């Protein structure tokens, strides 16, 4: 993975010092709330329901064991409070769909001390919030996936650097998210991003990017529009500069809900594309515009060299593997580009803890697994799990035993309980409804592994509000928290897709009737699943059946779960 240079380190420390100055002025009453808010947001500090929330950037999902240990220390020493319910004492982090980590209980007065601790391990919260270019996300299997055409990590790192405190683009109309994928399978949901980048090679074998613009969730779900099939990698920063400049100058600023680039792209259509191309041409014609030199790319690529091949496998272990091991190996172990290695998901979806949550002890545990089995490296996945990218095939058994002990071996990757969920109304000030109890109730309801495996591959996504942090639009089953008359209700959709080959072309799910009460939701999910099990053809997966059947049978089935809400027609 990328190792910080002296410049990177100085930069992050300078940022921490700058933030300390701003925080001190704020606490001294010299920097009023309204002026401090955008500054703290661009350092990852929200103010939430109970306390500030800190979002720490994990650039394109790569995390070292050392960094995870420091995050554990922060969870233990800073993210806690002494009063309140057991669930309100803190001491944990939450991995988000954008591969970041969030803390919920750090007092603002200690914020700059935490930024210093992060800087010690080359971490920060820069641009994890605010109306700027956010942390770049990518494929959790980047650099190791067998179906990869081009390793996206060096390009992600160049993008990380270029977007970091870009002076022109710090105050855009709205937040701006870029995702990069270099594999045939899109594991980064690129079509749902403000800019989705797909690395590939042209007929001549040259590397470039297919660029799509204007995807996004929220109250107007939009799939990104392809604007260029092949931007040579040397020119990608220039092309992105053109896009973001057009957006900065022309994106709407009069209405918060119409400020994302997707609205501009939709309203202007071809005129938007023309404006970008014209700005791109003007930049390329300028002698001051420099493409990325080959040597620069190579220098960054040096950081991503594969480890040496492991020694040849010893003889296969004697005896039949335990069924529990086989099940885990089927779901949680993934093929690898390099012979002798496997990638292994550490499931963060288990009973008793919200999806994506890790306690301080578990962070230490995962760090120890990474040190012992994966060259000290981890990945954060878009699905809110951790992944060990460099596990030797002959150590899978030992890893399984250790991961089981640490509570990371639930064999449910890709299954119903491997759900995506935002923190919801328990923690988030924006949420209309809680996500965590819904996730917990569904996890409890579907605790039978045989049943889960029979149901098979399925994406269940839960968002506590229309901001869509839990990506409900792209869930094969999507659950959205809505507020009606001050109480919590849930809208359920089926057949949404993130754009992966399992899910099909990216599309928002279809609503299956008026909102449900919280206590109806697990029954609704059960009724939807029962409909699938009854109607499926041999080998047909949920998403394929849902698309074939359309929403109607699910709508009828969900009606049987209604107790307090009115039937859908």
């Amino acid at each position, binding site marked *: 993975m990328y190792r910080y*240079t002296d*410049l990177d380190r*100085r*930069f992050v420390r*300078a*940022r921490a*010092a*700058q933030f300390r*100055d*701003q925080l001190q*002025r704020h606490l001294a009453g*010299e920097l009023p709330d309204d*002026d401090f808010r*955008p*500054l703290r947001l661009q350092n990852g500090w929200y103010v939430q329901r109970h306390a500030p929330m800190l979002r720490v950037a994990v650039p394109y999902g790569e995390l070292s064991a050392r960094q995870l240990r420091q995050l554990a220390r922060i969870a233990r020493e800073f993210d806690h409070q002494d009063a309140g319910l057991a669930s309100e004492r803190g001491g944990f982090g939450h991995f988000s769909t954008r591969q970041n980590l969030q803390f919920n209980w750090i007092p603002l007065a200690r914020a700059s001390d935490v930024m210093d601790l992060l800087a010690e391990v080359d971490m920060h919260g820069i641009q994890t919030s605010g*109306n700027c270019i956010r942390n770049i996300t990518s494929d959790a299997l980047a650099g190791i996936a067998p179906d990869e055409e081009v390793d996206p990590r060096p390009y992600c790192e*160049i993008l990380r*650097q*270029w977007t*970091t*405190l*870009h*002076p*022109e*683009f*710090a*105050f*855009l109309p709205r937040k701006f998210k870029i995702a990069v994928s270099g594999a045939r399978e899109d594991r980064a949901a690129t079509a749902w991003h403000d800019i989705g980048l797909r690395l590939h090679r042209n007929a001549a074998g040259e590397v470039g990017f297919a660029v799509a613009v204007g995807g996004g969730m929220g109250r107007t779900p939009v799939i990104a529009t392809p604007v260029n099939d092949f931007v040579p990698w040397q020119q990608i*920063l220039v092309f992105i500069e053109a896009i973001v*400049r057009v957006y*900065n*100058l022309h994106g709407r*600023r009069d209405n918060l809900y119409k400020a994302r680039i997707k609205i501009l792209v939709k309203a202007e259509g071809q005129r938007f594309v023309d404006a970008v191309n014209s700005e791109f041409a*003007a930049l390329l014609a*300028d*002698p*001051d515009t*420099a493409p*990325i*030199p080959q*040597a*620069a790319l190579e*220098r*960054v690529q040096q950081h991503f060299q594969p480890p040496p091949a492991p020694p040849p496998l010893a003889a296969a272990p004697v005896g039949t593997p335990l069924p529990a091991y086989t099940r885990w190996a089927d779901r949680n172990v993934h093929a690898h580009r390099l012979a002798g290695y496997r990638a292994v998901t550490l499931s963060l979806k288990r009973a008793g803890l919200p999806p994506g949550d890790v306690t301080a002890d578990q962070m230490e545990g995962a760090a120890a697994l990474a040190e012992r089995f994966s060259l000290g490296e981890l990945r954060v996945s878009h699905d809110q799990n951790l992944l060990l990218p460099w596990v030797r095939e002959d150590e899978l058994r030992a890893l399984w035993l250790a991961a089981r002990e640490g509570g990371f071996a639930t064999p449910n990757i890709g299954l119903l309980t491997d759900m995506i969920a935002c923190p919801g109304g328990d923690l988030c000030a924006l949420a209309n409804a809680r996500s965590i109890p819904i996730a917990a109730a569904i996890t409890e309801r579907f605790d039978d592994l045989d049943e889960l495996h029979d149901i098979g591959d399925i994406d269940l996504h839960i968002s506590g509000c229309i901001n869509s942090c839990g990506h409900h639009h792209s869930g094969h089953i999507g659950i959205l928290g809505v507020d009606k008359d001050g109480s919590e209700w849930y809208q359920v959709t089926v057949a949404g897709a993130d754009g992966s080959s399992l899910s099909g072309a990216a599309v928002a799910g279809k609503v299956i009737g008026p909102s449900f009460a919280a206590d109806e939701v697990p029954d609704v999910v059960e009724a939807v699943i029962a409909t699938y099990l009854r109607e499926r053809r041999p080998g047909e997966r949920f998403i394929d059946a849902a698309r074939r059947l359309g929403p109607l049978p699910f709508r009828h089935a969900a009606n049987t779960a209604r107790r307090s809400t009115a039937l859908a027609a």
Partner: protein
Amino acid sequence: MKPEQSMEFLNALPADTLLLDNTDDVIGRADEVRRHVAVALRFPKWTDGRAYSQAVLLRGRLRHRGRVIATGEVLADMLPLLRRCGFDGVQLRADQSLEAAQRALGYFDSHYQTAPGDRRSIHEIGVTR
């Protein structure tokens, strides 16, 4: 133009300053820009970032050598961004501390992007180092 030119704190706009709104097309008004020694770009709200792009276009595309002044709601903490987009003059909002503004300019000794008009590629000063 040097990448990190000095920043002048102004109480009033100099005479013969062309004042542009952040909805104005700076490229379309190139002729007017050429006739003025200074251009002031307005920040109606400090979180409205359009004038940063306008300044980059003035310096980069139009090669404007005169002053580029930030006016309107200009806060001390904007100073590093303003300077790096090519502004070399500011009218701070009345309540702002000059000391905090000067301090704000001192935190970073290097960046990942070039300033407009700087011919070194970002990869010489940033990515490659």
